[in-house]
């Protein structure tokens, strides 16, 4: 569409002229040449991280809007807004302004609901995305750092969520803030000082909401935004992982180009996520802060629950026996709160360090861009499943009152179930998952060697019935056999070539043992070899 002027010289179109201007200052053509057709592989599970990213953007957009109206102050006021049941009630400005957003600002309630729903979905999406990365082994070299960035985002997301839902200063959120004070008080030596400093004096004081506000809108999201950018830069730089399949190797990436396919798909997906969250927010009320009234330290409601992502820590705190000792120095050690407080980061850290643990066991220094099928890494898959079950057992503990009510069970029985399940359920899940994975490996092996069961029964001339097996296509054969089956590590011979006794460290012995568990005969089923396959194919009447 270039325009031609009178002298016949063609003038570049407007868009190109702007791009030229930018190129002279930013060098954009170099980057565009390299990246506009950058290929991204396609799979539904790759959308999970996108959901997390988009809900994060939605949270920022709606959060900025909410700050226009929210007053982070604990000054006491008499409510005179349009919500009749609260007329004249004494409450903090924070709570009053939250009611105003909900009842006097047009669209304010919708923005609050979108903000809260998006926060819940953000955490779910991060959690499930992390599980996808875990079960497919996408955390392996060179992506360990990005795994940690993602993990930090999850943890920071939890605390941003907690400080956020504490801000309205309603009866429910204040109970959470009170819980936090009790938890801090349980820290030995410095707990009392920490609590006084955080709350600006005795609970509740008038500082905690303004301070949480600063954490919630500035400190934590600022760090998270930086981490999100770093996370995305690394995704771009490493190029995305892909699932194995015909034509997909560790050295290539097969998929669709950023422009136009992924711009349309990913951009469109942002609108799908945003639209869906808006529709949910229009139809399902979340955090109806007007129901219970303002926070008062002497009042509480039943069924007090944190948002779901804090539920597992709530479970820890509920099921821990109330062990409290006064030690000989005359000081109190409140293990009933302190132990959950220590297990909380431990639960999270146990999944965060797994990539480094596995790298230590395998001593694998190669880059991995092809994803594992979960069944082909049975021990890792079993560990991940056990971790999830651990998490959910604690989540059950966090909602023990709701389980008791809805299933008509004894709350004491549920608490005891969680106390025992905390130790037993992950072990059981580990064993069962590993067996399922091995079973699936056996099935893959069968399928490769004998083909797919068609369900067609054939009668042979001599009267025997057989099922017809259909041979697999070359694509399927490749898919089911492409995976790496590492050999377990072995201890070096007890004496070296000079007959001198070789010293093997305890740690190395442990590593070898774990490696045997991972890759020994009990850890994986040998995949079908080409020789076995050919032997069967050339043989007659293998059925």
């Amino acid at each position, binding site marked *: 569409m270039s325009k031609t002027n009178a002298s016949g010289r063609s003038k570049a179109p407007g868009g190109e002229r702007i791009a030229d201007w930018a190129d002279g200052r930013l060098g954009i053509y170099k980057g565009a040449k390299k990246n506009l057709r950058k290929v991204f592989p396609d799979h539904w599970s790759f959308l999970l991280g996108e959901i997390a990213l988009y809900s994060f953007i939605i949270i920022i957009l709606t959060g900025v809007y909410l700050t226009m109206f929210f007053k982070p102050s604990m000054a006491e006021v008499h409510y005179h807004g349009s919500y009749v049941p609260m007329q004249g009630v004494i409450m903090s400005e924070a709570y009053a302004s939250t009611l105003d957003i909900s009842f006097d600002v047009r669209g304010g309630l919708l923005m609050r609901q979108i903000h809260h729903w998006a926060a819940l979905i953000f955490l779910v999406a991060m959690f499930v995305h992390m599980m996808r990365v875990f079960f497919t082994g996408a955390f392996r070299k060179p992506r360990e750092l990005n795994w940690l960035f993602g993990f930090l985002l999850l943890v920071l997301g939890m605390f941003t969520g907690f400080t956020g839902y504490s801000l309205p200063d309603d009866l429910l959120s204040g109970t959470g803030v009170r819980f936090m004070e009790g938890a801090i008080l349980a820290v030995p030596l410095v707990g009392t000082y920490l609590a006084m400093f955080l709350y600006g004096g005795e609970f509740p004081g008038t500082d905690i909401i303004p301070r949480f506000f600063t954490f919630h809108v500035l400190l934590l999201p600022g760090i998270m935004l930086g981490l999100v950018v770093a996370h995305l830069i690394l995704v771009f730089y490493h190029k995305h992982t892909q699932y194995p399949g015909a034509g997909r190797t560790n050295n*290539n990436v097969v998929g669709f180009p950023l422009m136009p396919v992924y711009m349309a798909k990913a951009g469109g997906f942002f609108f*799908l996520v945003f*639209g869906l969250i808006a*529709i949910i927010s229009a139809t399902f009320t979340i955090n109806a802060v007007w129901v219970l009234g303002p926070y008062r330290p002497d009042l509480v409601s039943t069924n007090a629950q944190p948002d779901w992502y804090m539920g597992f820590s709530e479970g820890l705190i509920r099921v821990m026996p109330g062990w409290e000792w006064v030690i000989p120095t005359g000081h109190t050690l409140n293990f009933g709160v302190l132990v959950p407080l220590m297990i909380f980061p431990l639960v999270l850290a146990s999944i965060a360090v797994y990539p480094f643990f596995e790298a230590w066991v395998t001593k694998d220094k190669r880059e991995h861009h092809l994803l594992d099928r979960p069944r082909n890494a049975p021990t890792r898959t079993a560990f991940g499943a056990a971790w999830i079950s651990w998490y959910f057992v604690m989540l059950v503990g966090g909602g023990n*009152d709701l389980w008791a009510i809805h299933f008509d069970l004894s709350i004491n029985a549920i608490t005891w179930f969680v106390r025992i399940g905390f130790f037993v359920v992950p072990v059981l899940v580990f064993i069962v998952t590993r067996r399922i994975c091995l079973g699936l490996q056996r099935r893959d092996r069968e399928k490769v060697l004998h083909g797919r069961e068609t369900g067609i029964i054939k009668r042979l001339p001599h009267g025997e019935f057989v099922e017809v097996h259909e041979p697999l296509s070359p694509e399927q054969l490749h898919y089911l056999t*492409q995976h790496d089956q590492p050999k377990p590590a072995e201890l070096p011979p007890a004496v070296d070539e000079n007959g001198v006794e070789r010293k093997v460290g305890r740690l190395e012995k442990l590593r070898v043992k774990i490696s045997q568990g991972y890759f020994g005969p009990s850890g994986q089923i040998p995949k079908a070899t080409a020789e076995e396959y050919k032997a069967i194919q050339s043989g007659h009447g293998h059925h």
Partner: protein
Amino acid sequence: MSSEHGSEKNVSDDDKSLPETQDTAAGGELEKHPFADPGLPHHEPRIQDIDERAAKRSERVVALFFTISMLATVAFIVSFVVFPIDKIFYLWPLGHISALNFSLGLSLGVALFAIGVGAVHWSRTLMDGTELVQERHPIDSTPDEKAAALATFAKGAEDSGLGRRKLIRNTMFGALALVPLSGVVLLRDLGPLPEDKLRHTMWRRGLKLINMNTNEPLRPEDITVGSLSFAKPEGLEEGSHDFHREIAKAALMLVRLEPGDIKDKQELDWSHEGIVAYSKICTHVGCPVSLYEQQTHHVLCPCHQSTFDLSDGARVIFGPAGHPLPQLAITVNDEGELVARGDFAEPVGPSFWERG
């Protein structure tokens, strides 16, 4: 751009980074290596690639969704203007809902969602559906790059003289280590020191117990068997600046027991005609204990289900609390009103390091 087409690209399989155990071989030798990578499957064209009428149909579908989005945005603006903010209506199965919130959310949701559907449909039906292949390159630097980087670093370190001039190095580390201390010191005024703040409440000898509900002094006859009453100290008014801080420690709950049912001797001594007053603040993490089981005289904290037996010194009988609820010794004054005989004998609420 046909060079980008995967189907035409010979995907190399002699991959040095793949494990030795893996038996892939050069493509095209499926006879010799039955599990070898057969390469990208042939691209199957879509109906839109062959039939221009189908492509036109897709184009119209995409345009339809973008149009729906435009209409929904108009609906959003109309809703904003038309619906009063306090209009509530009944919609099955959602119940009574705000007309404004519902219409704004729905129209915004449709406006956004339709853009998404249009864009995704466009990309799936009309944009080139051929998969492309790009090569990856190792992340780590070549030995030459590494050597050059190390040499550059060594040159910079040499120029700085950091290794030779120990005096500069040591004083610099000292200065850098000390300077953050200013920031730590500044945190001191975040709050006061604990001192004995957690050890005392408002209660003192002769202070009346005020009924939380009626704001009147409690009398023994107000408290009947089987009911749970809440009280605050005389002089503490809701809305006063220290109300939250004081009620967080001084909140009381009272029940009447048969004196014969009281198992704990001190509890009996500190009671009045079977009326016992306990701190309402749970000793676990400070929620107000407020669920009372009349028959057993158990109270349960709704937050974490710590259960206390009020007939036995508020002993913990279940849950995570570490010690009993503190009891307040009570009696009656000359007017027959319940009064405290002093402050709690021990700190109320969650335990802390210095509690002892």
